[in-house]
């Protein structure tokens, strides 16, 4: 009885939060990288995570969809407890889109197949249907002209937008971004940030690890500052970024701004 109810989305588990992290800890060997992180993210909320290199931002983000299983703690996404022993992690992951710093497109297939692949394998769509949706998603991001190219033959900005299209084609309820623009040449950053802004305005729930303080200030509902494996400070974007309370955040902001 407990196992079946765990599979079914139950938003009352989290009082309506789209993502609930409770006391997440993660160690690599003897090094503890996350030292007890708790965070609730509401549906349609945009949360930016900032913090110095090595503070555990990527690790936390990868915990949310269990790419990095936490050593301990509870993760509930869209009413499904992923840390429950019998959780259908693959199914849950298909509702959480992830965009990586280095795009991680599939270099051996064309752009259209990059987007369509998960639709046929995970959603078991017929090939034609999958390709129709992939094409639509790519056109929406103004990538329609590139569908028969290989990832290596398009610009980094285009690659990252394909990666976003690939995630969006799965119709996720949550999108995770891990420094989506930091591997891009400066002139290509804006195009990707524009897509992310649009997505935020459309009501997508987003967790965005970023060094783009302008983006955080403009788009984020909340900014979370991580330092040394814990959330050191958080709050409304404008307040956190303009009137930091902790000395560590003050120091961090003075370095990046």
């Amino acid at each position, binding site marked *: 009885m407990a196992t079946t109810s765990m599979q079914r989305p139950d938003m009352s588990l989290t009082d309506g939060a789209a993502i609930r992290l409770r006391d997440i800890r993660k160690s690599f060997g003897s090094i503890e990288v996350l030292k007890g992180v708790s965070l609730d993210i509401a549906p349609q909320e945009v949360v930016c995570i900032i913090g110095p290199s090595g503070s555990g931002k990527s690790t936390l983000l*990868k915990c949310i*969809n269990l*790419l990095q299983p936490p050593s301990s703690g509870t993760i509930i996404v869209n009413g499904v407890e992923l840390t429950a022993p019998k959780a259908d992690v*693959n*199914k*849950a*992951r*298909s*509702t*959480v*889109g*992830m965009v*990586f*710093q*280095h*795009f*991680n*497109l*599939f*270099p*051996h297939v064309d752009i259209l197949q990059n987007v369509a*692949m*998960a639709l046929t*394998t*995970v959603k078991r769509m017929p090939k034609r249907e999958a390709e129709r949706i992939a094409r639509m998603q790519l056109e929406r991001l103004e990538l329609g002209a590139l569908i028969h190219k290989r*990832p*290596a033959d*398009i*610009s*980094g900005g*285009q*690659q990252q937008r394909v*990666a976003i299209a*690939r*995630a969006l084609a*799965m119709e996720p309820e949550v999108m995770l971004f891990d420094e989506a623009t930091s*591997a891009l*040449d400066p002139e290509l950053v804006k195009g990707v940030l524009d897509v992310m802004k649009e997505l935020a305005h459309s009501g997508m729930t987003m967790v965005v690890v970023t060094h783009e303080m302008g983006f955080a200030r403009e788009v984020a509902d909340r900014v979370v500052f991580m330092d040394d494996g814990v959330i050191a400070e958080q709050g409304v974007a404008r307040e956190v970024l303009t009137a930091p309370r902790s000395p560590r955040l003050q120091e961090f902001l003075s370095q990046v701004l």
Partner: protein
Amino acid sequence: MDAFIHTFFDIGEMLKVFPTLLTEGLKNTLFIAVLAALLGLVIGMVLAMMLLSRSWFLKFPARLYVDIFRGLPAILTISLVGLGLPAADIRPFGRSPIGYAVLAVALISAAYCAEIFRSGIQSVNDGQMQAGRSLGMTYLQTMRKIVVPQGVRNVLPALTNRFIIDIKESSLVYLLGLTVGQRELYFIAHQQQAISYNSSALVAAGICYLMMTVPLTYLVNAWDRRLREGRRSLKLKPATRLSEV
């Protein structure tokens, strides 16, 4: 000098065996090598998956297999399989030695293919697995559709090299006592040499082997160069610079 030429390059002796080499030997050599290579690829891929598994129960037997079959001389493995199995009344291929010959070469080839596949798969950037999994694909789906195709492409030259060795190793099955019609290149030449005490038949067989192996060697080199250059030109492009590291 005349004796040397007579022993190794007697045109008459060569012409005597060439028809048999080409009609019977070449066919059987290729039959053994190709079938063994295909079987070796399949078993090798399964072994590679086991080697990459986190489960000790899968990894250990695969490791053991690979270490044993890579560590034994080919001629010993071929004797064990081709002479040993039938003697122990294990006769999946009846009395015909050719089935045992294929199996023996395949078992050896599989051990090497396993290591080749493993290294190829491990050379694929970890981000590929993460991207596949993040979309909800299972480990095996991600392996099959994303990681393995890329990994295999990286090791095509190494696999072709292995096929060259399969061709050469197929000659060792002569010790299973092939009958007329089953004889591969070396066996035919060996028989002729035993009759005539002249090595020209062996040279003729050697020419047949070289006709297969030398072009393949050049193919491997060209392939290898292209893969290397492809990788380098990708690195130079700013768009993919970082995703390549």
